[in-house]
């Protein structure tokens, strides 16, 4: 009598292998659904928006009538916002990362800052809007100006930059630091001349990703009072402003159905800018990450 009945074994095995194959297909389809959604979104927005996307749209202000509405104020406003957000968040974020990685002792306080940053990253963006509304608009009475919006966005994306900069600084090999100390350099000289230059590609990549998040943010700007319609361009950071996502939002809320096409055109402009920023980030990462 055979100890193993080959037929039973192969019967059982076949069904298990079949299950595995079915599962693989199901998992694959689930992965593809996300992509299909992305495809539908892109198709829908391109077919709706390309018709309205022309020079008049890029160089015009928004308007009551859908065929004359343009996104100029939004693009310029977003650029102004970034001129506040980028330096603020980069300087504070990188400084925090340097402190945590190079100077801080592994104690309770450092851990506290780390946990705090983690939690800050999980705070809904609209709560940052409430913070900006109270502190800038009401306590400092800045009014609804670019400075208030830019600072609010800067605080919002701060955790993103800190984490990216920390990882980048951590990945600088210790031999470089030791060589620098060996040559008699002090700690700050080592950080400034050796560690930071080596970490710059990673920091820049993180910075650009953080900015591209800031450009797409809508909710906090609604709270700190970005205008939905504006007909003069800001000339300093103390002027009222609007931003691309704010304009898109106001078009989705417009009563005339034709504004759907205007909103789609605005979305194309926003997505193209984001895509550009992201490809710059990828380019920097690919170009510089292989050294060391």
């Amino acid at each position, binding site marked *: 009598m055979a100890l193993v009945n080959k037929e039973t074994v192969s019967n059982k095995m076949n069904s298990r292998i079949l299950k595995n194959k079915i599962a693989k297909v199901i998992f694959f389809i*689930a992965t593809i659904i996300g*992509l299909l959604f992305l495809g539908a979104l892109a198709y829908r927005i391109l077919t709706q928006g390309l018709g309205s996307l022309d020079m008049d749209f890029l160089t015009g202000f928004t308007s009551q009538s859908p065929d004359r509405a343009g996104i100029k104020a939004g693009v310029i406003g977003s650029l102004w916002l970034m001129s506040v957000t980028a330096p603020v968040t980069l300087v504070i974020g990188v400084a925090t990362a340097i402190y945590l990685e190079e100077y801080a002792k592994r104690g309770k306080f450092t851990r506290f800052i780390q946990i705090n940053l983690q939690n800050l990253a999980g705070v809904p963006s609209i709560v940052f809007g*409430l913070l900006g509304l109270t502190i800038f608009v009401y306590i400092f009475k800045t009014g609804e100006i670019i400075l208030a919006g830019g600072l609010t966005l800067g605080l919002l994306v701060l955790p993103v930059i800190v984490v990216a900069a920390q990882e980048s600084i951590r990945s600088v090999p210790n031999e470089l630091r030791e060589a620098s100390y060996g040559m008699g350099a002090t700690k700050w000289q080592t950080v400034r001349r050796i560690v930071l230059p080596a970490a710059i590609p990673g920091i820049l990549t993180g910075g650009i990703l953080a900015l591209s998040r800031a450009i*797409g943010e809508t909710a906090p700007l609604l709270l700190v009072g970005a205008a939905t319609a504006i007909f003069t361009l800001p000339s300093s950071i103390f002027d009222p402003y609007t931003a691309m996502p704010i304009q*898109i939002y106001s078009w989705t809320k417009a009563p005339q159905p034709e504004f759907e096409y205007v909103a789609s055109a605005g979305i194309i402009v926003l997505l193209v800018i984001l895509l550009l920023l992201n490809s710059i980030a990828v380019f920097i990462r690919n170009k510089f990450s292989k050294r060391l």
Partner: protein
Amino acid sequence: MVSSKKNHDELSVKERIAKNKQSNSSTMFVEKLVPKLLLLCATLSVLVTLGILYTLLSETFTFFNQVSVVEFFTTTYWNPWRDSYGILSLISGTLLITITAMIIAIPLGVASAIFLSEYASDKVRRMLKPILEVLAGIPTVVYGFFALTFVTPMLDKIIPDLSFFNALSAGIVVGVMIVPMVASLTEDAMGAVPNTLREGAMALGSTRLETTIKVVIPAALSGIVASFALAMSRAIGETMIVAIAAGATPKFTLDPTQSIQTMTGYIVQVSTGDVSFGSTIYYSIYAVGTTLFVFTLIMNLLAQYISRRFREEY
């Protein structure tokens, strides 16, 4: 160069030490100053948190001087313009969106993670993962627009009595938005499971599916569950999608075909309307904001606790 060297040589030892000390002292000054400046910047993140807490709490306190706490948390009718503050209807709206989103995001996210981590070849993974990540980078205002103008009309064909603004469409799109987050965190957790465990299971004759379900997922469970908690926190705090597609009619209901309002949606509605500073309605957005903040904070802390407490060590 030569003259300076000569000059240097002409100095006595004493003078040289003095000179060195002088230049050292400015270096030393910088060395002592820099860490303090850096610490100042690092403390800023803590200050931001304190600022958030302070603004939320102080304005919320003012609100509760005008409206009873009990009414706020136990009644279900929300109409600030008629002085009715029953936040349960906003909470039920938020939960409705969150539940719908999680029903979409958990299966899709976990299945994508399993496919990418266990089944896909390296080449396929490197192709699919960045495309999935694009989903996470799309601004939420775009998702909101898409929910309103594409998903809702599609659902309308299947469900005839769907309202134009509805929780279902917004919830589905919020779910799709957080799929990449669930997928990448779950994939990280599964990737951290050592290959020896997989090889052991396969050597005993398990198929890939059995290995995944009986070995990899249990080993990675804490990370996977933590990713659910983080995703929930995102869904609770998501603003633009619900502000555009879910409507602005606070209702105490769990029927997703209806128009509802979430906590975030209410804050947007008030802040874009004409509400005067200092009115009860103005303070109400802080009370709602605090409630929202507490909800998301609990989910975030829960995620951190789960991933720390239940992490398997190999």
